[in-house]
Structures are given as C-alpha cells and as structure tokens.
C-alpha cells in the first residue's frame, strides 16, 4: 500500500524501512496516577492503523503525547519515534516545534472550532507551509490553493479567501486535512475526524484521508471508537482499554477472530444488526386492537418557514405529512439541515408551523384550514390559523416527553438525580392522570421505581449527574421523560454521544421500556443503522421533505429514493472494506 505518486519526489530509500511511528512503553500520568500503562505499537510508512477504544481508554492521550501537545499537568515517559527521529519524549518543545506540522501532523475531532474564526482559511493553510519552508508568501499562497484543490474543495481559489464560518463542517475538515498535509508529513494522526459530521460527508472524508496518505506514502494513525470505520479505513488495528493495549493485529484477523474478551464485546456491540436481541420484539401493541386506532401523531401538509435578515427566508419544512400509530416505534432519519429538529419541535409544541395541521395525542396543536374561494377564482389560500391554548399545550407536553442528545448538557449539574427525575411530577398538569403522585412520599416512590426500571443503582436518586457515566446519564434522561407516563417518547439522537458498547444497551433499554410501558417511540437519528435496529417504521427526511417512508425492512432492503440509497451506502458497517 505504498504507491509513491509519480509527481512527488521519490521517497528516500530509508522511508521504505523506517516506520512512520514507533511507540514503545509509553506511559502517561498525572502526579496522582498513571493513565496509560506502557503501551507499544508501530505504524509503518504507508500503513493505516486504527487505534480504537472507548472514551477514557487513552486514545487521544496517546496521540497528543506523540505530537508533544499534552497538557502541562500530564507527563509522558517511554519512547516515541516519528520517521526515524530520535525519541521525541526526550526532546524540548522548541525541538518538537520543527517536527510538528512537518514530519507529523494531526487532524482533530471538532472541525467547527479547530480553525481560527478570524482568519481566512487559505492564510491558515499558508501559515503552516511558511513555518516549515523557505519559500515566500506568494509561493505559500499558491501551494495552499493547490492543497485545497487536492482535498476536493469547490472553487479552491475562492474558498481560500473564505472565513471558517462560511464553510460547512465537512469543508472545514477538508481545510484541516489540507493543513495537516501541507508539508507532506511522514505521519498523519486523525483523532475521530468524522464524529461531528453527517454520514454521507463522513464517507467522503474517509475516502479522502485514505487517498492522500496513500499518495504520500505516509503512515496514518486513525483514532476512533467506531469499529466499522476502522474496518473500512485501516489495515491494522490496536485495541486500547483502560490505558493498556489488549490486542493488536491485522484488521481482518482481529475482527474475524478476536482474542481478547473486550474486543469481542466491542465487536458484538458495534454490529447493530436489526433485532440484535430477543428483547427487541418490535411488535406494536396496537396490533392487538382489531380496529385501527386513530394515529397518536398526525402531521398534515406541515410547513415551517423561518425569516432571515434581508427579506429572505428558509423553508425548514416544505409540506410534510405523516401518521404514527399508537405503540409504533417510528424512526426519523436525516442529516443536519433535513428538518428533523424542526419536526421534533413542532411535535413538542415548542414551535408552531407556518401552515398545516399538527395533532398529538388527540390535541390539535395547530391547524390551518384551506378555504376554497369558488366564486372568483379556483385559487386556494390558507384560512384562519388555529393555535392550541396554553392549557392544551400543557396537556400535550404531559403526554409527549423528550430525551435529548447530550446527556450531560441536559441535566442540571447542581440538582440531585432524584430531584431531576421527580421534577416533572411537581407540575399538576403532568400528574393529572397519575393519582398516586399527590404526596411527596408517593412521588419519591415513583422516582425510585422508574430509576430501577431504567437500570440505575438504588442510591442513584441521592447522587449528582457528574457522578454517572455517559450511558447512565442518558438513562437518567429517559427516567425523567418517563416518570409522568407519557404516551409518546421522542428521543433526539439519544445515543450519538455514547460509546458503542453503551449505545446498544441504551437502545435495548428504550425498546424494552416501549414494550413494557406501552408508549409510542419516535426516534430521531442521523444513523440509519441505529434506526433500523430499533424501529418498525421509518421516514427519511432531506431538505425539509420526507423523501421516503414505510416499514423499516422494506425501506432498508429496497430503498426507492436515491438519497436513501446514498445514506445506506454511507452507513459504516463491519462487512464493508475499502481498499
């Protein structure tokens, strides 16, 4: 896998034998405790190695130690050699500065904040070039535009003059890749480079990364928690757990025949096959009712138009209609900007449509009748708008609860978990249908029950959110949403911030609770695999429209719309390999 591109100068003979990166007995720790316990691995020139593990396993620490960018309160010992250089850990920061961005470079996770917002992106790429080469300003500018061309940005000369905020997340990540490649490094480290991006964008960025390192014969250290990505991008894999390498080897071998227990768990959790567990029955209880019950959620010709300065506007929803039956598990799939979040806000009564009808749990939230003006013209125009009263909104909110994406940001850090979960019960509207929630003691019992139901320890109610892991926090959010027994639970990307092994557990919990407590589940996600895993019906959204909907397996097996096909193709799976 080291095809030297004919255009680049032939790599010196030594590059064939010198590994891009050698890590030996790397230990990182604070004064109080050691976080990384002597790990070792190699990345050969032209080789793509995946470093996988869950949050807290030490992946990013390893990368930062190689780059010499560890925080001041962390110390590293051991051996790190990049492209045959002497041990980097034994060298001063001033010596490392010459290597960073030249012999080794790094692409970070969060493209939205990784670029200086006040400087044009071309200038930022040019800066890295000029730091390590003698050429003048004009030459660096030209080279920057060349690099922006290579990473596939449209109209590179114009893009070079853009500021970061004028580019999308995927485009910014391309700029960062261009910066990292500016001086043809021997080693490129990519730390979760696509976590913040949409799946279709992710697929293209991964393709780009593989291409540019192959062209340069550089080594790639690809850090991720997603095994499917590793199987697509990398040749070898290093599995990290709690600061120790538990397994490493060729991707095909490790994934086919994992030796370590932890790798097996990770693998099992990663392949979100539909109906992974027998717990996930996906039988809507409505099926027991012979006569068709009325839908619990009905959107009819809903549009939402947001005004923008200068008399312009954005159509977030362009007339969508959908029905969700009681007990259904409904998945809403789409990428950023597709209108998922707007739909969700309308359902929760947090926003009102520009036109159309929104009905939730028997309450009409908004309704715009269409009046036909027969006598003069055949034109139809919207009639008088109807909007639900505050009392009706309160009733809807008692019946429709939300679980948000960020389990930390959505829990008040200064409140005990018991109070967080019990808070919805303090609102009389929410407990109108729960007779056993009148006294404080009764409410506390309800909170205890629901915390047990979501699988949290007995003492959870007395603790604070920061004392829980990400997955547990999401369980707290679910408990809070379910405590007042809603008819509908809307989960907005409930697992996208979680590690893979935890992801499966939380999805399983949602499915089990939906069956046990007989609520309708609306799952909003960008990840077709997650939705397929859990839902019986899905709707695919794009640019404010529902492009396809139907029973999950039907949509998955034979997608009709090209966008659904693109989404399916871009969804990383363990079986797909890119070469």
């Amino acid at each position, binding site marked *: 896998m080291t095809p030297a591109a004919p255009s680049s100068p032939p790599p010196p003979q030594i590059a064939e034998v010198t590994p891009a990166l050698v890590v030996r007995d790397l230990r990182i720790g604070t004064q109080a405790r050691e976080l990384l316990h002597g790990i070792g691995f190699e990345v050969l020139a032209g080789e793509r190695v995946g470093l996988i593990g869950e949050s807290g396993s030490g992946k990013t620490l390893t990368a930062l130690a190689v780059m010499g960018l560890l925080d*001041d309160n962390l110390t590293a010992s051991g051996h790190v050699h990049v492209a045959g250089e002497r041990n980097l850990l034994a060298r001063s920061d001033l010596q490392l500065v010459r290597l960073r961005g030249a012999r080794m470079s*790094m692409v970070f996770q969060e493209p939205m*904040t990784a670029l200086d*917002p*006040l400087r044009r992106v071309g200038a930022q790429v040019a800066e890295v070039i000029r730091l390590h080469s003698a050429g003048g300003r004009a030459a660096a500018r030209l080279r920057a535009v060349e690099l922006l061309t290579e990473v596939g940005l449209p109209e590179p000369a114009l893009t070079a003059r853009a500021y970061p905020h*004028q580019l999308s997340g995927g485009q910014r990540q391309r700029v960062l890749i261009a*910066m*990292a490649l500016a001086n043809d490094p021997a080693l490129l480290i990519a730390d979760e480079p696509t976590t913040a991006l949409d799946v279709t964008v992710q697929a293209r960025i991964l393709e780009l990364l593989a291409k540019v390192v192959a062209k340069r014969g550089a080594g790639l250290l690809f850090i991720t928690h997603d095994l499917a990505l590793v199987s697509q991008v990398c040749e070898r894999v290093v599995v990290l757990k709690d600061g120790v390498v538990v397994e490493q080897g060729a991707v095909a071998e490790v994934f086919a025949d994992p030796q370590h227990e932890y790798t097996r768990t990770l693998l099992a959790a990663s392949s979100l096959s539909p109906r992974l567990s027998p717990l996930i029955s996906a039988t809507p209880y409505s099926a027991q009712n012979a006569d068709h019950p009325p839908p619990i959620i009905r959107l009819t010709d809903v549009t939402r138009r947001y005004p923008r300065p200068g008399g312009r506007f954005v159509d977030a929803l362009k007339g969508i209609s959908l029905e969700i039956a009681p007990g259904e598990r409904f998945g809403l799939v789409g990428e950023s900007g597709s209108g998922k979040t707007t739909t969700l806000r309308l359902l929760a009564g947090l926003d009102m449509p520009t036109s159309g009808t929104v009905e939730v749990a028997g309450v009409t939230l908004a309704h715009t009748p269409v009046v036909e003006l027969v006598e003069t013209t055949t034109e139809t125009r919207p009639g008088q708008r109807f909007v639900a009263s505050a009392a009706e909104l309160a009733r809807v909110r008692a019946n429709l609860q939300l679980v948000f994406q960020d389990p930390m940001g959505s829990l008040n850090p200064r409140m005990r978990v018991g109070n967080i979960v019990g808070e919805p019960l303090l609102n009389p509207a929410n407990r109108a249908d729960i007779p056993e929630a009148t006294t404080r003691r009764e409410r506390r019992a309800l909170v205890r029950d629901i915390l047990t139901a979501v699988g949290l320890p007995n003492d959870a109610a007395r603790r604070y959110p920061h004392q829980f892991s990400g997955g547990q926090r999401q369980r707290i959010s679910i408990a809070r949403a379910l405590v007042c027994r809603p008819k509908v639970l809307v989960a907005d990307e409930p697992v996208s911030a979680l590690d893979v092994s935890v992801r499966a557990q939380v999805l399983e919990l949602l499915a089990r609770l939906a069956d046990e407590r007989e609520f309708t589940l609306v799952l909003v996600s960008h990840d077709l695999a997650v939705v397929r895993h859990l839902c019986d019906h899905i709707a695919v959204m794009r640019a404010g429209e529902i492009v396809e909907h139907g029973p999950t397996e039907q949509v998955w097996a034979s997608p009709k719309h090209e966008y659904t096909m693109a989404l399916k193709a871009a969804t990383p799976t363990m079986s797909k390999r890119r070469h």
Partner: protein
Amino acid sequence: MAWLAGQLVATLAIASLLVFWVLRVLPGDAATVALGMNATPEALATWRAEHGTDRPLIVQYGEWMAGLFRGDFGRSFLTGNDLTPLVLDRVQVTLILVGLSLALALAIAIPLGTLAAIKHRSLWGVVITGGSQLGVAIPNFLVGVLLVSFVSVRLDWLPAGGWVPPAVSLTEFLRHVTLPVIALGTVQAAIITRYVRSAVLEVMREDFLRTARAGGLTYGQALMRHGLRNAGVPIITVIGVQISAMLIGAVVVERVFVVHGLGSLLVDSAQNRDLQAVQSIVLLLVALVVVINFIVDLLYTLLDPRLRLAGSVV
C-alpha cells in the same frame, strides 16, 4: 453600518431632549441665581427676556439644537461670553488627559493581563491578579491625592497641579500631565487587566490554538498570532465602556490636580446654574460616549468577519 449610524443619531436626539428637559425641571431658577435673591421682579423679567428663558421651551430647544448644528454652544448665562471657544479649549485638555491615560492603561493591562493568564497557575499570575484587585478597589482621586502628597509635596519631583498646553512647552506639558495620567490610568489598567486576563484564559482553551500548535507554532506564537486577536473582541468591549468611565473619572482627577478641563467647567457651571453651559457640556460628553461606542461597534466588524454581512465573500 447604516443601522449603526441611525442608532447613533437616535441616541443623540433622545439624549439632547432628556438633558434639556431635566435641567428645566430641576429647582433653581437661572435668573434668580444670576441676580441674587433680592432682585426685583422687573429685573428678573428683563434678565429672562435678555437670555430668552421666558420663551416657550420648544423654541429654546430648537434654538439650542440649531446652534449646535452650526458648531455654536451658545452664550453663558453667567458671563454672557460665547461658550464655544471655552468649551473647545477645555474638551481638548480632557481628551488629551483621557487619551494618554488610556494609552498608559492599555500599555500596562495588555501585557500584564496576558501574563496573568499564561501564568495563571504560578505565583506571577496570583500576584498580578491580586494587584489588579487592589487597583480596582482604589478610587482614582485617592491615587491622585497620594501622588500629590508623595511625589509633589514630599519629593518635589513634579508639580502638584496646573496645566501647560503641549504647544507652549512640551517638557512642561509632560511634567504637568504625568501625575494626573498616572492617577487616571493606573486604576483603569487594573480594571482592564482583569478583563484581558479572563479573555486570554478563555482563548487559551480554544481548539484552534491546539491546531496552530499542531501545525508547528510554539505556544507563544500561537497565542500571539491567533489568540490575542480572538481575545480582542471582548477586550474592546470593555475598553469602550471604560473610556466612558474615564471621561467621568477625569472630572474628579481634574479637580484634584487643578486642571482646567471639561470636568471642572461642568462642575463650575452647575454650581452657578449656568444652564446653557451645563446642557451643552453634558450633551458633548454624551456625544463623546456615543461616538466611542459607535467606533467600538465598527471595530468589532473589522476584527470579526462573522459580524460582517454574512455570505458576502463567497
């Protein structure tokens, strides 16, 4: 831009109405103050007719505004002199004082605040932060009094007060201006240091500094090239607010150092019920503050492309 300019004009119009109205509502008749308690009603009426205070308020306001548009501040009720040269002379003094104090404050605050942020875990950071806390707590007239009693009276290094315009003698100007500038500037330096420190601390945590370092910049280079400009937006906000505070602070410092600036003119005029002078000076101060805020708003858009018209580049 047009929006900002409109805001500026509207603010000034409202301020002028307010100043005019408040001064008319306050007790203390200008004619009585000018002629004394024992003046006959006829004398008072004559005085009012002479100075035009017997006409309808709307006419008085219109005349005042029309004068200001021509660059005419009107005539003093007290002396009958044209206020314009006096006010312009005094405003020069105050602006020089405030400008130099600001320069001193920034020269101290930006390096010290940055240092305090970089070394926030070490002794230096604690010393600077503690020192600036002390500076914030001391009012600037107290600094002035202390400076006079030590530097001027005890050591006799610099004059205790007075003012020599720079055009007359540059060395004398500097000798006279040093102490008031220190009194006004150091307290501001202490306040701005704290804001610089927190703005730089904020920026130090940004992802793009790490990106810059990964590209081969040293920590210091990354901070200078990418950090300070990003920290600039909040710092400029504070500087804008502090200039306004300094204009007010100058009133007191001018008193301590017997400098005849706008502040002392305002205080004298207010004591003498010289309505015409007071309203013109107050409006001038308001105008200065509003214009400074306008400049700050313009600087934002220069500094931060996100605040410019979105989507105009690509």
